[in-house]
Each structure stands twice: as C-alpha cells, then as structure tokens.
C-alpha cells in the first residue's frame, strides 16, 4: 500500500486539470497544478475564491476544454471530482467539417444554379434549332417547288417551240431542284435524329435489315445484289433511330456496289464476348482510302465524286449521331476497290 501522500502527489502532478469540491457547500477541497495553470491563479486564491461549479473557460492559445464531473466520496463527505478534458482537436475537426459542409452546400447551390442556367440556355438553343429546321422544312422548300414546278410548266407550255438545248437546260434546273430537295431532307433527318426523344426497345435488327434491303431492291429491280442478313440479331435501341442508321448504311452499301457485276452486301453480328453486340454492314463495293476513315463520319464529307456516286454527305454523320445518342461506337474499315465494312454498337 502507498501512503495518501503518494496518491495526492499523483493527483497534483497529473497533467489533466482536476479539482475536488464539496457537493453540499461547493467549497473547493483540493486542486491540482494543471488546473491552477489552466485558470492562471495561485493555489490559495483558487481555494478561497473559487467554488466547485466552475465553467471550463477558454484555455491558452485557443485550446478548448470540456468539464467532466464525477460524484464521489472523499473523507466521508459527498464530493465531486472535476476534470477538464482537452477537446481542441475534436472541436477543430468539427469546425473543419462544418466548413467543408458549408462549402459543399455552397458549391451544390452554385452547381444547381449553373445547371438551371445551362438548361435554360440549352432549351433556348433547342427551340432555335427547332424553329430553324421548321423554317428549312417549310420555307426553303417552297421556292424550290416553284423553280421545279414552273420549269416543268415551261416545258409543257412552250416545249415544242424550244430547242433541244433549251429543253436540256430546263431539265437540269429541275434535276438541281430535286437534288437540293434531297439535301434538305437529309439535313432534316440529321436534325430530327439529334432532337428526337429516344425510347429504347428491343429491335429485331435482322427483320429490319431484310425489310430495308427489300425496299432497296424494289427501287432498282434490275440490279442483282446478293444480300445476306444473319438471322436472330437483336439490338436494344430506339426503333425509329436504329432504322434510320441501318437505312443509311445499307443505302450506302447499295450505292457503292453499283459498279460491281456481282454486288454482295452482308449484315451480321460479331462475337463480342458478352459485351454489347457489334453489328456490321459489309459490301464489296468501291471502298475508300483508310487514311480518310475518320473523316467519313463528319457532315458534308464526301470521298467520292458526286457524279460517280451522288449523295449529300450527311448519311454517315446521321449514323454517327444515332450511335452516339445510344452511347455506342461506329467505325469503318476498307481498302480502295476492296469493299467497305461499317461496324457499330448501341450501348
């Protein structure tokens, strides 16, 4: 057993500020050095002027303390042992956390505000685009109809008195109006593809491809084209948009095989190891220089002479937009004269 003096020495030298007071009278019974240092008073003054229910008070250098009171018996008296716990680090951490939370709230508010602003701007841009494409659809086509219509009327009304050259000139005017009509239609499709709401559904790619191929065959019944469509291909996408994409790819294949005696077009699906299926449209047509493979999908990009293969240069840009809207990829492989393969995913 140690003497009481030894225990008192432990109390007095304990680094944690502590004091003991009478629970009935609140008079201080004893106080340790750390507590005196904390309050900055001498022992006598503390014992005389302080009572037990002190508040912790601020520590030096911004340190923070919390009071922990423990009722106890001391020399047969009801007493309370009080200890000050330093919680500076805890409070600092709490403060830092609160500041982080404040900052997060501020950033969230700012972010939401920015999203709102952008949404408004975006909506304005979309309505502008809608107004534009409406205008393209309606107002740009009207004069075109006049040009084509009255040129035709001219041939009908004055045909016999016109020279063969003059009639040929008028035929060129009519043909040009027709080409511009195609261009406008293709631009409208591109704009529709961008704006249209997307609803994903299960799409029977095989059936779709067969139907498009049949439509193409109807339009040029004299062309023998061998088409192979793999059975059972299914995609998960917007049926209307998938149709537009496949239509463009197959129309291209049809067009660029027009010089082949034995034109072959294949629609299939590649093994993709459980990832989203890779569909392809392959032809044995004129192909293209692989150096330009990345240019192929930009709007108004044409790799062939318009007189050889007429087109607006918008078809593959449309395919690309459709694929991107589905979160998929599209790419092409070819060598000049060796046909072309177009691959796409729709995930």
């Amino acid at each position: 057993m140690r003497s009481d003096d030894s225990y008192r020495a432990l109390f007095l030298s304990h680094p944690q500020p502590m004091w003991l007071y009478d629970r009935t009278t609140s008079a201080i019974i004893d106080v340790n050095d750390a507590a005196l240092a904390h309050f900055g008073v001498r022992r006598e003054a503390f014992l005389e002027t302080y009572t037990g229910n002190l508040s912790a008070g601020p520590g030096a250098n911004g340190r923070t303390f919390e009071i922990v009171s423990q009722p106890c018996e001391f020399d047969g008296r009801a007493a309370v042992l009080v200890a000050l716990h330093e919680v500076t680090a805890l409070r600092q951490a709490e403060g830092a956390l609160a500041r982080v939370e404040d900052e997060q709230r501020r950033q969230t508010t700012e972010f939401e505000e920015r999203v709102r602003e952008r949404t408004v701007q975006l909506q304005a841009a979309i309505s502008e685009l809608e107004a534009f494409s409406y205008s393209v659809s309606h107002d740009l086509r009207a004069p075109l109809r006049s040009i084509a219509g009255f040129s035709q009327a001219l041939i009908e009304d004055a045909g016999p008195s016109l020279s063969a050259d003059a009639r040929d000139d008028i035929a060129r005017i009519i043909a040009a109006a027709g080409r511009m009509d195609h261009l406008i239609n293709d631009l409208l499709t591109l704009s529709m593809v961008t704006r249209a709401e997307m609803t994903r559904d299960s799409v029977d790619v095989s059936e779709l491809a067969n139907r498009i191929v049949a439509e193409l065959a109807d339009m040029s019944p004299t062309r023998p084209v061998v088409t192979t469509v793999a059975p059972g291909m299914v995609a998960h996408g917007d049926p209307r948009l998938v149709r537009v994409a496949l239509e463009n790819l197959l129309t291209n294949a049809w067009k660029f095989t027009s010089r082949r005696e034995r034109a072959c077009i294949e629609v299939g699906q590649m093994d993709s190891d459980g990832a989203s299926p890779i569909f392809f449209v392959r032809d044995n047509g004129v192909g293209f220089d692989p150096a330009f493979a990345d240019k192929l999908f930009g709007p108004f990009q044409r790799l062939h002479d318009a007189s050889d293969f007429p087109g607006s240069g918008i078809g593959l840009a449309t395919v690309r937009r459709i694929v991107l809207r589905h979160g998929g990829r599209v790419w092409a492989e070819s060598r000049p004269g060796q046909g072309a393969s177009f691959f796409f995913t729709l995930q």
Partner: protein
Amino acid sequence: MYQILLVEDNADDVELALRAFRKSDLVNTVTIARDGVEALDYLLATGSRADRADNPLPDLVLLDIKLPRIDGLQVLERLRANPRTKLVPIVVLTSSIEPKDLLTCYTLGANSYVRKPIDFQQFSKALQQIGSYWLQTNQAPPLPGTT
C-alpha cells in the same frame, strides 16, 4: 361538280395547284383562301363572308399549315370545334414533315396529311390522287348543305 377550298398563301403554289387540277379529269371549282382568317370566314360564314350562311360547304378542304394571320393548325382546331364544319374532309397539304406537325394535325382531326413534293409531276400526281380519293372513292359524311 366538286367544290374544293384551297387554303394557301403562296401564290406560286396556288398557281401550280390550279395547273395540276386543270390537268386532272375531275371537274372542280377551286376556291382560294389566302390566309387562316379568309378560310374561317368562308367556311364558317363569318366576317366578310357572313353572306355565305346558306351556301354549301366545299367537298374538300386542302389546308396549308403555315399561313398568315391565323395558321393552319388553329384553322383546323376551330373548324373541328364548330358543328357546321367538324366533319368536313380536311387534307393538310404542306411542306413540313416535322413529326410534331403530323402529330398535331392528326390529333386536331385532320383526315389526311400530304407533304407537297418538289417535283411538279409528283405534285400533280399527289393532287390528282387526293382529288380522286376524297371526291370519288371516299363516301363523304352527310354534311349540312352537302349536295
């Protein structure tokens, strides 16, 4: 003898349409309304055409969408809301293929929607087909004042 009301503000399109009708073997009287107000006044016998109250309605209305003053969609809506004209055959004849226009026209009760082709021969063919179907093949609803 069939009566057609052509609601069209573009003078060239009016001329081309009349030309196409002249070539068709259907004998028609084509009345022209140059904007939505004229069309509504003519059909509902209001405003400047209040004198028409007892006159028969046309057998077919060809309606452009983009029109001055009151546009074609509003004309369509008001005609369908009026007991006198709610059943009159209306074919929307327009340049637009905006899916929104198609949807609105059918929702508002258009009988048919035809996009004007650029090529005049196709345009003539379209008008002849519209005329022959709506005036000859189709059985018109019994309308007040139909002959």
